[in-house]
């Protein structure tokens, strides 16, 4: 794994999480992971690329996708792609469970950062898990 890819909608949310974490003193902690935070543009994705393309790009580029999306199940949903194409060593998708709290609750934002860090730090234990939540 070489980094994370915030879903296009949550580039701002992931940035806020990391800014809040640095402000709280976790900068060195985060930097020690040595991970890139990529963008759709940087990995050649269109802002409206379908979830299947985004997921495949993440697997190919060894990036963990971070989302805030609340989607219904459907044949072309991210959930369906994970089920159809996920294998034992696929990188998980991390979904922030409470988009509103990232903005409104500093304590939640810092807990979410720690959960994100822990998932990434122990990524080997989370491969193949499909979708995981940042509660």
């Amino acid at each position, binding site marked *: 794994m070489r980094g994370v890819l915030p879903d296009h909608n949550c580039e701002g949310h992931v940035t806020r999480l990391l800014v809040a974490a640095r402000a709280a003193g976790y900068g060195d902690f985060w930097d020690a992971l040595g991970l890139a935070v990529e963008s759709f543009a940087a990995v050649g994705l269109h802002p409206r690329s379908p979830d299947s393309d985004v997921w495949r790009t993440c697997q190919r580029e060894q990036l963990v996708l971070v989302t805030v999306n609340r*989607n219904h199940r459907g044949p072309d949903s991210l959930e369906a792609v994970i089920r159809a194409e996920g294998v034992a060593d696929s990188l998980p998708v991390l979904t922030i*469970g409470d988009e509103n*709290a990232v903005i409104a609750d500093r304590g939640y934002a*810092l807990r979410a950062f720690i959960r994100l860090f*822990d998932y990434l730090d122990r990524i080997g234990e989370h491969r193949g898990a499909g979708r995981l939540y940042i*509660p």
Partner: protein
Amino acid sequence: MIPLEIEDLGCGRGPGLKGTKLNLYTLIPARLAGNTPEDIAERFRVPYPDLTAAHIELLFSYMDDHYDEVMAVHHEIQARIDRGNPPWVEEQFRQNLPRLLARLPPELRARTEALFAEPAKAGRAAPVEPPPLGQPVEG
């Protein structure tokens, strides 16, 4: 510019702003928590710098017009999120947290420990109870 139009965004996203991946269901918790359309637009200006309160109001107007249908899907999505991770994921996190804390400088370790000290704070905040069906939320 983002047009003031709603379309089905596909990929299970449901109704959202045409030309974006911003769907209504992602915004409902923020609305239920009492945020204004301008507050909500502001938080998505990365990556949508042209997003305005009018775009958010358009989505909320759609929500009010299709309230029962939208809230039924919202409840289903929220229930899935509330079920959260498989137990092994949460158990591994609880077991690993002390090792993770041990890597932090003492002062930061204490503050981080406090963040997770209360069981109620270990996860997300309790979901906001939406208003009764048929009761549009003040935007």
